[in-house]
């Protein structure tokens, strides 16, 4: 019975979702035409009104998320499978259904931003190469690598997606030119350079530990003592040896109080009693600020970005 209700719910068309074979193509065409018309209309809007369009869309995009939290719904409601009983519930269901398309639109927009970023990057570097500006050689390297990686990556994806129904290309023995080239460029070069860049931090940390971490105040001493306990606790061999020593001491003296001096016990105490409450307090402040900023952005009160 539950399965039937579930399947019915899944196949039910709603305002936000049209199923294949029910005029879906017409809706897609209408949506596309509307989109083009809207884009054209936006280009014609006077600049003093553009702010209000941005504010309006920001408000509309945030509205379903806010309403989904605030709109009353029956206790224990299953918004995917239940059927609304009255207008209030119907509105709640529609708001809930709106979250998916709004979320998908923001996903598309975010992906679109990646495209805009790539376009901007390529344009800047092509201009640099054309004008032979300072370090234009690096720009040439970037553009050549970009073109090679894109071509090889796309061809590899195309062959895996459309010409390899049985997944033969998952086995390196079946690889062709594009699989080897992609592996060399992505795994062999890009990924290794990524790791190498990050590993350089180790040198800075060691240098900073030697030159900059100075005990000049009580606060610095407390911080260093805490850091030392936490660092020592990361060393399993030491923790184990220290813990075994403490356990023998407890057996010899019969006093379990010494167990508090095991490294992992001290580190746990530091984490749960000092570190976590401090982080929680900082998070609390940060999220209050984020909430205030979110409200200002959503209601169009934030001047920067929108007006500039």
């Amino acid at each position, binding site marked *: 019975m539950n399965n039937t209700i579930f399947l019915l719910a899944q196949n039910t068309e709603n305002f936000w979702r049209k199923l294949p074979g029910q005029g879906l193509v017409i809706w897609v065409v209408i949506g596309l035409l509307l989109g083009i018309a809207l884009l054209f209309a936006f280009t014609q809007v006077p600049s003093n009104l553009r702010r209000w369009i941005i504010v309006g869309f920001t408000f509309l995009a945030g509205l379903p998320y806010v309403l989904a939290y605030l709109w009353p719904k029956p206790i224990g409601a299953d918004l995917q499978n239940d059927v609304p009983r009255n207008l209030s519930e119907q509105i709640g269901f529609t708001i*809930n259904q709106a979250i998916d398309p709004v979320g998908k639109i923001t996903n*598309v927009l975010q992906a679109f931003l990646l495209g805009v970023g790539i376009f901007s990057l390529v344009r800047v570097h092509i201009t640099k190469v054309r004008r032979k500006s300072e370090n234009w050689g690096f720009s040439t390297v970037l553009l050549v690598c970009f073109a090679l990686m894109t071509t090889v990556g796309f061809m590899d994806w195309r062959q895996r997606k459309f010409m390899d129904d049985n997944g033969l290309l998952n086995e390196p023995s079946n690889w062709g030119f594009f699989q080897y080239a992609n592996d060399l460029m992505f795994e062999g070069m890009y990924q290794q350079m990524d790791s190498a860049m990050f590993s350089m931090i180790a040198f800075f940390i060691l240098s900073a530990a030697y030159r900059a971490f100075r005990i000049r105040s009580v606060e610095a001493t407390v911080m260093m003592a805490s850091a030392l306990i936490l660092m020592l606790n990361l060393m399993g061999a030491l923790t184990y040896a220290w813990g075994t020593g403490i356990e023998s001491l407890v057996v010899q003296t019969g006093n379990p109080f010494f167990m508090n001096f095991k490294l992992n016990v001290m580190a746990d105490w530091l984490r749960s009693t000092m570190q976590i409450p401090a982080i929680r307090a900082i998070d609390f402040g940060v999220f209050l600020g984020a909430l205030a900023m979110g409200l200002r952005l959503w209601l169009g009160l934030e001047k920067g970005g929108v007006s500039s």
Partner: protein
Amino acid sequence: MTFWDKMQKVDRRILYVILVVFVCTGLFIPVKIPVEPDPSSKDFYATVMAIPEGSTVLVQTDWTNSTRGESMGHFENLMRLLMSQKLKFVFYSAADPVAPQVARTVITRINAERKAEGLYVYQVGKDYLDLGYFANAEATNTNMGTDLRQAWANRTSKVPEGGEVDIFKTDVLKDIRKIGDCKMMVVVTASASIDIAIQRLANKVPITAMVTGVTGPGVLPFYQSGQVKGIAIGLKGVYDTEYLMANGINISNGDERPKVTWAKTSSVDKVAEGKTFARGNQYYGTLHVALVLLILAVILGNVGMFMSRRATRKGGE
């Protein structure tokens, strides 16, 4: 100029050479070091091991090779754990476009390892699904929590029989109607994507995490509050997981006392098949060396500062 003054002005390249020599040497000497796993690691292991065979787990993999020292070990351990427990899984990324490809490479390697050991090889479309990259973590996680079938609607996957089918018709997701039907969500990350997942999904599916040492402290408040069921943190977390996979919890070998004891649970088995000690074991010795170097650097730097100051004061008198 006194000895301590010279030490204060030591060329940083000498420090770099010492670091390279000691750290690289450690990499070639993997040693099985006895440890007391962190409670959060034990919770992580116990939570995974409690999932019934054949269940589906969500894996949000948001790491790339920049943090592979920690995250790759985490992801490999997770794959070994899920495969040894015969769990199905879906993986995707909500933070980095490169992350899915990095995960694919690891899965291919773990599958090759299992093939060499004569174990079952996981197949895409049957045992796991690869959903790729979602561009916006906030919207993606919210949509997954609101309606998983809508959030992943119209996605297809290759299947071992050939061709592509809707992901909800595959063995992995055919019984999943909402996110709560998945037994667990694991977030492997080096960033704040874990925070977003917790904020949007913690009340809908049990969440566990495998994070870097830098990200770890930020997740601990969620672990303490019970919103995250278990966390493996940093390289210690990688080694903890491997140690737990090899030894279980409260499991004794004959007359020996258990290598890992825990009052919170009765007993949790060690993994039944496949490799246990791997990347964590290879790197853990190096972590010891690096930490000793770091502690020595701090001590020497401070002793040098005090001695140098004392010498200056004496010279002034």
